């Protein structure tokens, strides 16, 4: 029981890191980026290649995955995404689906279509068990590691948003880009940095998730729904919304698969539709509060 809750939380935290970048770009630029999963996949493959072929240690690969995804994100923002900001949502959806198609096929071409996995370092394998009987809590070390990293990230991000100059500029730009630009905030640069950072986070999440989620070229499509659920259910105006949504989703998924495996993803999708009907703007959005 507790083990399930723990697994659900670990899964949810991972989803949170993966989708946070999407939530921010969605809230900030009002841009529906279905290609977000491609950046996560990039991070995952960077980790796999570095560890397997270059023999890098696991901990060094994680920042590398972040940096690689962030750089590609920055490049893509500059060249591809910027002209699309002002376009209708339909155009954005098609554009990013096209990008995802390209990423999937290209990955298939370069990396092969089979699922890849990596050997996690020894100090991260195995599990810790606490208590006994029905209330036994078994924590896989790797999942514990994920939770620790993700909680640290969430706290750091919250601190950046709340206390730094960049954070206040970002929040201003989210609320009203035009007024923010009028006040001399370099909105374009804020956009660029945020997009790059969000992509980097996705890359990091993808790298962390190789062992838990699995990694193959269809990754962006397989998890696109999950990212979108987190963003649409959580709303895009704060960090808390996506965090709660991601935890809910992780718990619902793990519990659903454990107790009623026959229904599969049915519970998650049904829950999502129900929540969206109840609160079309998401559970925690600014619109719902007003």
């Amino acid at each position, binding site marked *: 029981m507790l083990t399930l809750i723990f697994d659900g939380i670990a899964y949810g935290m991972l989803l949170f890191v993966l989708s946070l970048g999407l939530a921010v770009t969605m809230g900030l630029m009002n841009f529906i980026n279905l290609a977000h999963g491609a950046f996560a996949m990039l991070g995952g493959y960077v980790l796999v290649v570095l560890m397997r072929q270059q023999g890098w240690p696991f901990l060094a690969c994680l920042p590398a995955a972040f940096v690689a995804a962030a750089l590609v994100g920055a490049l893509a923002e500059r060249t591809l995404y910027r002209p699309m900001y002002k376009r209708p949502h339909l155009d954005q959806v098609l554009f990013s689906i096209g990008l995802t*198609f390209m990423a999937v096929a290209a990955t298939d071409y370069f990396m092969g279509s089979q699922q890849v996995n990596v050997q996690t370092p020894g100090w991260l394998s195995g599990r810790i068990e606490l208590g006994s009987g029905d209330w036994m809590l078994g924590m896989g070390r790797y999942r514990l590691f994920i939770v620790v990293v993700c909680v640290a990230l969430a706290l750091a991000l919250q601190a950046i948003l709340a206390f730094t100059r960049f954070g206040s500029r970002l929040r201003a730009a989210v609320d009203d880009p035009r007024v923010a630009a009028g006040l001399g905030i370099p909105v374009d640069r804020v956009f660029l940095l945020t997009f790059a950072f969000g992509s980097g986070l996705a890359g990091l999440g993808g790298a962390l998730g190789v062992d838990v989620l699995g990694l193959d070229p269809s990754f962006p499509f397989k998890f696109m729904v999950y990212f979108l659920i987190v963003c649409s259910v959580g709303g895009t105006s704060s960090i808390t919304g996506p965090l709660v949504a991601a935890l809910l989703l992780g718990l619902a998924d793990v519990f659903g698969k454990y107790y009623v495996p026959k229904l599969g993803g*049915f519970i998650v999708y049904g829950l999502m539709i129900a929540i969206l009907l109840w609160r079309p703007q998401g559970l925690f959005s600014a619109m719902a509060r007003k």
Partner: protein
Amino acid sequence: MKDAAAPKDAAPGAALLLLAPTKWRPWEYALWLLIAATPFVFAQHGALINEIAILALFALSLDLILGYAGIVSLGHAAYFGVGAYGAALFAKHVMPDPLVGLAVGTALGAVLGLLTSPMIVRGTDLTRLMVTMGIALVLYELANQFGEFTGGADGLQGVVLGPLLGRFEFDLAGRVASFYSLAVLFVAFVLMRRIVHSPLGLSMQALRDNRLRLQALGMSVNARLTTVYTVGSALAGSAGALLSQTTGFASLDVLDFHRSADVMTTLIIGGAGWLWGGLIGAVAFKVLHDLISSVTTQYWTFWIGLFLVLLMLVGRERLFRPWTWVRRSAG
């Protein structure tokens, strides 16, 4: 066009302007004659013509929802799949007559569309995107789980149809199938033309462009969206029914996400918001598919993706009119 005539006291210029696009143009007659001739001329490609006709019908149904009503849907396969499974199960267990099966598939699509439309008409683009996708995913999971009913991952096999109109047996080369699908496509096209140029269709386009204003004018926006969404779903259901009838097979593939994405790509290639978009897109999509597949079988999605990205970045108008590139850089 008598029934759509404007009131007598309206300015004759305005009436003419409104009625002008409802007239059948000579090239439209010509194109339909050409389409009707294809199964005779390319008799050996009956299966391909059938596939194109079904894709065109599916794209046409999405056009009504997306191009005219402006509802962004990533789950249109839901209605297609319901129609496909409905027609297949009906033919297998109840009655093998194709036309009745088609009616059943269409009706199922319409019912599902009507049931789900309250979820579609509310919310923002993102919410709609998620809800439409969610509906398709839920149906996919259901079809997967009720394996004894739908055949699960193996698909539903052994669908045998009776002869069309009690006369024409479905042949292996797909000749009868291609005539059948083209005929249904034609009927749907004519129906769509009527709907699109009716007051309902005109108000849909106005609604797509400015929803708030229509509400201010006192139109019941939601009722209109519901109607159009139901009609679109019904057409998607009939496309699905055609597929499972003519191939004698229904599998989970009919509900898959890639089908929703494909049909959207098709429509966008052909152009959303005009009736020929779905038809032209279907031909272009299938031809592109065959061309690229003959070069690289596995990676053809890359080129479709590249095409979509270019189309969106450059814009349809400019991509298909190369001569405007020069003028723009000069100005």
